């Protein structure tokens, strides 16, 4: 059976009619006991399992997923990867993630199609320009690449934007992070799943967590739809459903769940070069490798667990699209959906121990979890394996909501909410 993906192996397999490829990863039944159970088979959960095995040699690990892997927010997001944050703690965290993305295809031997095509944030007013000067300066101070653009330079980066004086939403300029871009979401999930599975991690699908098993106040396992599974440590990486699981475990979180909406057009030839965000218009755009124009909207304005998104936001995103890109006005929409995101008041994540011994959490990424998959998995694995917080995670503990040491990351939300 062929396990490794390479040009040589591809040619060799082609001669035999591609009959001897090993499955990318194994879907298995759960064992009664593991060292670590990770709840949630999205990018963060799978990356956690992969780094537990790869960085810490812990392979007696299960990832339990209620649906199918990558079928939650990992399969519902708009795949933007960037590190254009304001504060030093966030800059370090997210840029570590961008750096992991830069080498991820090689590390995983799986093409995650990371394309550093640049992320442009548009300025529609003098105030936007002033704010972006501050934003880019903060990024440069943190050692992250950033560049202010005038309107003409914006159009060079994204020719189909309407920068004319007659535009409904005038574009005065913007800024770009050139190392930012997009990656293929299912490839990230499958790449981590394949890497983890090859190192001995069990991936269990169609396995919902119904309750936690506790002994003397400590979590020692989970009751699932496929029976009881015990473990020394349990971690949860379930994004918008974090509060639901925390409630089962007996603690609360500073999280509110909202629907974040996206949609794609019918596939067309390459028309968009970069990823463009307009905080003022509440929309952002890119083009997938399949040719679909990907349109993302703002959050619904009210708490929601409905994976569809409201029509008010849908209308806003489409109106912004036809004004900013007049030539896309006649494209037909192919699909529209929403993912349930875990929004925290300071728009920064929570990664580490919970108030319940034996239970660890990775949540609070809000609208921007995809970009953080490598770092989220890396530092959750670190605390699970060593019992100590990774240095990048020290500032992002649950305790900050009682000490007041918030990291109020306004730049976390690429678009305003």
């Amino acid at each position, binding site marked *: 059976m062929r396990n490794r993906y390479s040009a040589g192996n591809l040619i060799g397999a082609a001669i035999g009619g591609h009959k001897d490829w090993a499955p990318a990863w194994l879907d298995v039944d759960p064992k009664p006991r593991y060292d670590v159970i990770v709840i949630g088979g999205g990018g963060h959960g799978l990356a956690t399992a992969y780094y537990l095995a790869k960085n810490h040699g812990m392979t007696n690990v299960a990832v339990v997923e209620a649906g199918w892997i990558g079928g939650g927010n990992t399969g519902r997001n708009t795949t933007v990867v960037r590190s254009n944050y304001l504060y030093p703690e966030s800059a370090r965290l997210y840029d570590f993630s961008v750096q992991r993305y830069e080498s991820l295809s090689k590390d995983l031997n799986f093409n995650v199609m990371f394309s550093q095509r640049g992320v442009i944030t548009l300025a529609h007013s003098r105030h936007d320009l002033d704010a972006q000067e501050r934003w880019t300066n903060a990024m440069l101070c943190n050692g992250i690449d950033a560049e202010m653009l005038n309107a003409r330079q914006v159009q060079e980066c994204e020719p189909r934007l309407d920068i004319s004086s007659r535009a409904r939403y005038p574009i005065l300029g913007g800024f770009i992070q050139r190392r930012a871009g997009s990656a293929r979401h299912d490839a990230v999930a499958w790449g981590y799943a394949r890497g983890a599975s090859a190192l001995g991690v069990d991936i269990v699908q169609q396995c919902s967590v119904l309750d936690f098993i506790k002994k003397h106040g400590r979590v020692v396992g989970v009751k699932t739809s496929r029976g009881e599974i015990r473990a020394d440590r349990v971690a949860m990486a379930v994004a918008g459903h974090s509060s639901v699981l925390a409630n089962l475990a007996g603690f*609360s979180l500073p999280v509110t769940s909202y629907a974040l909406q996206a949609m794609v057009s019918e596939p067309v030839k390459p028309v968009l070069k970069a990823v463009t965000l307009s905080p003022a218009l509440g929309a952002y755009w890119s083009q997938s490798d399949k040719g679909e124009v990907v349109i993302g909207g703002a959050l619904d304005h009210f708490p929601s667990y409905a994976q569809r998104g409201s029509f008010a936001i849908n209308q806003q995103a489409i109106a912004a699209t036809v004004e900013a890109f007049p030539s896309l006005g006649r494209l037909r929409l192919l699909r529209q959906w929403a993912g349930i995101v875990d929004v925290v008041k300071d728009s920064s994540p929570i990664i580490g121990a919970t108030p319940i011994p034996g239970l660890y959490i990775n949540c609070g990424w809000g609208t921007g979890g995809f970009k953080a998959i490598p770092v989220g998995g890396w530092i959750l694995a670190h605390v699970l394996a060593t019992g100590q917080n990774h240095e990048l995670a020290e500032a992002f503990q649950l305790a900050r909501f009682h000490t007041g040491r918030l990291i109020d990351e306004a730049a976390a939300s690429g678009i305003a909410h």
Partner: protein
Amino acid sequence: MMQLQCPFCGYRPENEFDCGGTTAIARPPIDCSDEVWGDYLFFRVNPKGLHAERWRHTFGCGQWFNVVRDTVTHEVSAVYRITESRPRALDP
């Protein structure tokens, strides 16, 4: 588009309203511990199901009022004024 019933103006589209989040959270005394104050400011039940929340008819009469809404189906089971308490039948 989702419609909400303002107790003063009747049914209006959702984008005339702002959602103010969970309603009827009691403020603790000012000399409470950091733990209690942090819980009050930031920690929320965030239920998947019935949620009692306050809304404001911002682009209408400007009044605040309460709604019990299902966060999955968005079905509204009660609308009551800001000083009224949640209907007994809908207690969690």
